[in-house]
């Protein structure tokens, strides 16, 4: 799920960046430091959308660096257990399939794929129903349910299922 939230961070800036462009330098350093990172609490920071406030700078003893408390708005992405997501399949093998929803890597085990879908090996490994009407292969879009999440410093891993109603393939690239 996406959230639009306000976060705060203490940014350290070297005096060489002071002057007319101080604010710009501060903001671009913030973006470089924060966009694309993860935290357990907020998830993946997708993009900074605005700066709410920049507090007074404090010179640090002994170094000359200045610390600015910055409040900024950003869009974060955090999957939750129980959430329904759409993801793109990246790899299919006999253990199940891997899919990606943006920065989130999801694994759906064979145990959580409907029993009537069989693994077909070959050039383009896939899971297919016995009548061939539904096929899960690389580049497919699937709707899945998250049953567990884990957040790292830079990555988010999820375990998912498609065994419930209304889950599974939503767009077959092979179809016309």
């Amino acid at each position, binding site marked *: 799920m996406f959230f639009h939230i306000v976060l705060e961070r203490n940014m350290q800036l070297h005096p060489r960046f002071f002057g007319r462009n101080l604010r710009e330098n501060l903001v671009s350093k913030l973006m470089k430091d924060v966009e694309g990172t993860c935290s357990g609490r907020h998830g993946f920071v997708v993009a900074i959308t605005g700066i709410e406030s920049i507090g007074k700078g404090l010179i640090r003893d002994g170094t000359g660096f200045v610390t600015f408390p910055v409040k900024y708005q950003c869009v974060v992405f955090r999957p939750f257990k129980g959430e329904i997501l759409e993801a793109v399949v990246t790899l299919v093998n006999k*253990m*199940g399939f891997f899919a990606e929803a943006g920065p989130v890597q999801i*694994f759906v085990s064979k*145990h959580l794929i409907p029993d009537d879908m069989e693994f077909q090996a070959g*050039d383009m490994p896939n899971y297919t129903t016995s009548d061939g009407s539904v096929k899960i292969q690389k580049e497919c879009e699937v709707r899945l349910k998250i049953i567990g999440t*884990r957040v790292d410093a830079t990555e988010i891993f999820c375990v998912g299922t498609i*065994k*419930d109603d209304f889950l599974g393939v939503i767009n077959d690239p092979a179809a016309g």
Partner: protein
Amino acid sequence: MLAEASSSKGECEHPGSFGNMCFVCGQKLEETGVSFRYIHKEMRLNQDEISRLRDSDMGFLQRQRKLYLVLDLDHTLLNSTILRDLKPEEEYLNSHTHSLQDVSGGSLFKMEFMHMMTKLRPFVHSFLKEASEMFVMYIYTMGDRPYARQMAKLLDPKGEYFGDRIISRDDGTVRHQKSLDVVLGQESAVLILDDTENAWPNHKDNLIVIERYHFFASSCRQFDHKYKSLSELKSDESEPDGALATVLKVLKQAHALFFENVDEDISNKDVRLMLKQVRKEILKGFKVVFSRVFPTKAKPEDHPLWKMAEDLGATCATEVDASVTHVVAMEMGTEKARWAVREKKFVVHRGWIDAANYLWKKQPEENFSLEQLKKQQGTEEE
């Protein structure tokens, strides 16, 4: 349903984990089971699940009439060298490298970004094409993961032979050792092709040892050979008669024996036994006596050379008699050697047995006479 297992966590068997979460119920798990990094760095499977996957696979193998083949890279399918190690006599190679944009048809590649040059072994493309019709293939190398992936791109640009089945030293479970523990196939259905026997301490019966491919001078140096490398001699292994062509024949034989009876349930068959059978045909019918080849204190039957001869189908004995066909000696003056000459039996040095083992075919005895050995030793001393 398993998806609702959060309320019945006690019943979930936790067959494996992704990111330290059980991939059936989502519960957080300590690191258990075997790491399958080559599939995904966060993937782990417990032993029961590995067995289940291997068992469920048998039906697929039966229908496809396929077995598993695990292939080593260095000195088996190719030879690589660091650019810095190229000798002046090898500099000419720099102008013969093939494009990396479209690798089909090429066999010599330069990868500046890895500071490396790689030469594919002759016949490797035909080998992979034909083997892929009989085997699901894995790469298993002691190189690191980026090296393994790059070599796979050279050998298999379409990803049709190996898929995601590329195991590097970063994916193995025990350092400096290769094992079938991360291969998702029954051990009774796996053959291995590697130039280094000791890399596979637990799977010697699955292993076909292939002659090392030394193209670059650095490779010869590494193994302490005094001879010039193929690149320095501006030569190469023969395509139709080379090691890969020979091994392909052996693979075809073992595969044919395994799937001999079309409808037979293969879960009772063992490809290791098929391999033994193929090997036992090589020196079948010959009786060998060894003369001053083994240290006197040891039991001859325990010596690796004795066992090798028996594995090749020969009968071994300690005393001569009329049924003996070959005497293996390292010098002409021994009693048994003189007996052999009198009785018009073959006298060969141990290379005759080693060659049969490596080349999967009985070799002409004339090429392994003791005069040959003396000549060879003479040139080595010079």
